[in-house]
Structure formats: structure tokens, C-alpha cells
């Protein structure tokens, strides 16, 4: 069973850690599954190139499975209509989003193939499989599911603010802190400007 590393940022942007882990694992030759929810593939590709890793090449040789949230949501929202009966029958399932990305095969290969798993969530609750927003409790179960299902390492980024009024997000972050094995927390120094 792998390790669950939680990346957390407050008052600053911790995504540099995500870029680091992505290129770190790829350079080490591990298989990586990356879920990008808020940025496009080319954004990560450009930064990775600066760090000396080519994501496109990694994807082609099967070392990297890249799931792009922004692109997939367009397919879900503007894609073809399925007959009503089918849609109603399906319960909103947290993995529906990932399965819709065609990641089923990657997951099914499962534990043995996915040596290392990388997740990047900035605003997980913004996901809208079937137009429903995932409540914090469901997200937590989702992450736990992945943790058990996958035998690799998991890395995840969440954002929190001390004076945030977003209770759902705070709940999610606190819960993930408890589940994680290691927390890397990026915080700004009060004297610095952001």
C-alpha cells in the first residue's frame, strides 16, 4: 500500500509542488495517472518541459495517463444525449466522472499497473458529473476509495484559508489531513506580499 501525501496551500499557490511531484515521478520511471481539474494539459506540459520532462512523450509511451477535467466536462455537458431512462437509472457516482474520461481501462489495470497515482484537486466539489456537485462527504469517500483501490502513492493538492467561510471545503481539507500520511503545507510569510 502506498503513501498518501497531502499538499496544502494557504494564502499562496502550492501548485509548484504538484509540478514537482509530477516531473519527479516521471523521471523516476514510475507510471503516473494525473487528474487535472482546473488547468489544461498544455499548461502542465509547458511547465514540465521547463523542469525537463516531456508530458506528451510520456503519454505516448504509456507512462502517463492524463485526465483533463476541463475537456471532459465539455463532453459531458455538450456531448450526446443519452436516453432518459438510462440516465435516471444511474446513481450519481463519484467515479462517473473518471469513467467518462475513458479512464476505466486504466483503473481496471488497477493496482499492478498504477504504481504511482497522482491527483490534483483544487476544487473537487466543482465537478459536475450529471450536473450534481459533489458534497464534501462524497469526495472524502471517493479519495478513500482510490486509496484502497490503488496500490501506488497518492498525491493531492487542496486549498484552505484561515478565514474562509467555505465550510464544506474546510471539512474536506480537515478530513483529508486525517487520512494522509504526510502533509506538505505551503503558507505565505506574513511579511511577504503574497
Amino acid at each position, binding site marked *: 500500500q502506498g503513501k498518501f501525501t497531502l499538499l496544502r496551500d494557504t*494564502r*499562496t*499557490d502550492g*501548485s*509548484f509542488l504538484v*509540478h514537482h511531484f509530477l516531473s519527479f515521478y516521471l523521471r523516476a520511471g514510475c507510471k503516473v495517472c494525473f487528474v487535472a481539474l*482546473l*488547468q*489544461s494539459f*498544455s*499548461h502542465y506540459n*509547458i*511547465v514540465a518541459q*521547463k523542469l525537463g520532462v516531456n508530458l506528451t512523450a510520456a503519454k505516448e509511451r504509456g507512462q502517463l495517463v492524463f485526465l483533463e*477535467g*476541463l*475537456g471532459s*466536462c*465539455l463532453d*459531458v*455537458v*455538450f456531448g450526446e*444525449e443519452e436516453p*432518459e431512462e438510462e*440516465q*435516471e437509472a444511474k446513481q450519481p457516482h463519484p467515479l462517473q466522472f473518471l469513467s467518462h474520461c475513458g479512464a476505466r481501462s486504466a483503473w481496471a489495470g488497477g493496482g499492478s499497473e498504477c504504481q504511482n497515482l497522482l491527483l490534483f484537486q*483544487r*476544487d473537487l*466539489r*466543482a465537478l*459536475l458529473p*450529471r*450536473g*450534481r*456537485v459533489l458534497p464534501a462527504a462524497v469526495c472524502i469517500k471517493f479519495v478513500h476509495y482510490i486509496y484502497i483501490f490503488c496500490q501506488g502513492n497518492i498525491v493531492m493538492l487542496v*486549498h484552505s*484559508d484561515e478565514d*474562509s*467561510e*467555505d*465550510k*464544506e*471545503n474546510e471539512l474536506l481539507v480537515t478530513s483529508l489531513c486525517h487520512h494522509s500520511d504526510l502533509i506538505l503545507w505551503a503558507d*505565505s510569510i*506574513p*511579511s*511577504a*506580499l*503574497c
Partner: protein
Amino acid sequence: GGGLAVGTLLLIEEDIYGVYSHLLFKYFLAEGVVCGHDLFVASAKELPANILKELPAPLLDNCKNEVREETTTVTSEDDSMQIAWRYQNFPKVEASPNTSSRFGHYYDISKTMSSELFHSIKCHSFFLPEEPSLQPTVKMHNMNCGYARLLQSIQKIIYQEGFDGSHPQKKQKNILRIGIQSLGSMLWGDDISCTDNPEDAHSLTKFLYVLRGLLRKSLSACIITVPAHLIQNKAIMERVTNLSDVVVGLESFIGSERETNPLYKDYHGLIHVHQIPRLNCLICDVSDTKDLAFRLKRKQFTIERLHLPPDLSDTVSRSSKQELAAAAKLLSSGCGAGAGGKKHLDF
């Protein structure tokens, strides 16, 4: 800096009466006309055609054909091609503004743009009251009707006009500038701006997420104004900020005590930069200046650094020293935590 990268979203938190945010909105569209971009204007309260009639006139010496040539070609969606918008850090008047290396244009807001400039521009509009009501699809049925309809409209234009690369265009690639006015207000059918516990707190965030996807996958840039001062639920604004690339808040002095404050006598309001984009780089580049103020002159809208006057005199009364310190604290907190406390430095 200056410019809004293709594929990104600029969110403006409106000032209380919406005066200055509307001005920035018009500048954005005007720049689109001058650069030859296509426009998409969406509003729930004002006819887009009327908005377009009020765009400021550009200051051009030569004929508009020269201006057109400044549009550069785009190689990929996420190339950092910059579109100019009105962001002038130091006011200056240029006698001959037309050089090929110039970035952005100047406008005279005391005059409106002549309709000739619109001839070759494709303007798409979306006026909510005139849109047929949406047949709710299962995918969108949890989203506010107005937003869903707007998304469909935007997606249709992007697809039909080929901004997402779906029809290889024979003509030169172009940019679609999308402007959405007062999103989140009651007129869009959203109640987040009139109650603490809105029925559907997530419609706006869902809308923004799908819009983000559309923008990233096409040659377009978007500006949205939001009446943030009406949205009581701060959690919603946090999520909205997170889903946008650039977030700027306008605070006007109209009707507030700052109008008579001698510190701000030259200005009409403050600009708070809540978020700057993190695009294609490891971490965002934070500018040195956090304190920006704007003023509206007869012909120009300018944004400047705010300088507090030095506190030189010993005879300055206690109350105004406190005010200065409080103002300093307020200004330098910017988008991060500032030094706490009301102490001010004694020299």
C-alpha cells in the same frame, strides 16, 4: 504587464453602482472592435446593441486598416498571445499612437465609437429576456436556466465560427471576445445576490467551470462583471475567485466616507487585485504594486499607483494619524495577509 491571455477569464467585482465596472467592460469590447476580433456580448439587463452603441471612440490618426495589421497570428490555443485591454499605469497622451510595436489602444470616452468601425466585426449577442426558454436537458437541469442557456449559446458560436478549431478556417484565425454583464445578479435568475442561503448556491460555480473549459479549448477571452458586493455568502465568492484567472475588485468612493478623505482626493476609487493568472509557469509573478487607484477624467479612465502622502508634520492631529495608519494597513493587505495591528511607523 498588460493584456489578457487567450483562453482566460477576467472577473471584475463591480463597484456599488456599477459605473466603473461597466466602463472597463466597454473598454474591453472597444479594444475588440479596434483589433478586429469577434464579439459576444451577454446581458440580462441591457440590450447588447445598446451597450455597443456606447463604446468609447479610439484615438486613431490613420485609417483603421493599419490597426488591423497589428493582430498577430496564433499558433496554439494556450500561446500567451496578449489581447490589449485598457490598463494604463501612468497617464500619458501620445500625439501619434500608431506604431506597429504598440500594444493596446487609447480611447476617448467623451466620444462614442463610430458605427463604421463595426462594419467588418461580427457581433453576437445574448439578451436573456429575449431568449426562448430552455428545454431542460438532464445534463443541465441542475444549473440555473439562464446560465445554461448562455453556455449553450457561447458553445454554439464557438463551434459554428470555428474558434475551437473544429472547422479549419480559410481566413485568418481570429479571437472571440466574450463579455458577460452582471453575472450572479437577480436578473439572471440567481438568488445568490439577494439571500444568505440561496437555494442553488452552485449554479454560478458550475457555470464558471464549464465556461473555463470552453475558454481553454478555444481562441477566446472573456470578461465578466459580478455584483460581488451583493453576494452575502462569501464562500461562493471564494469559489468563484478560484475558478477565474484574473480577479479584480473595484471599490468606488461614491457615497462613502472616503469621498471626502483628503488622502483620496485625486481619485475616484480603488482597485484590488484579488488574483492574477497562473499560466504556463510554476508560480505566478506577483507585482510590486498592491495599491492601485483609479480616476475618471473627462476623456480617460486611468489607473495609478496610490501614494500616501508622507506623514511629515508633528502637528498632524491624532485622529488623522490613525486614519493614515488604518488606510495603510488596508491598502497593503492586498491579496495576502498584511502586517497586523494599527501601529504606524514613527520616523
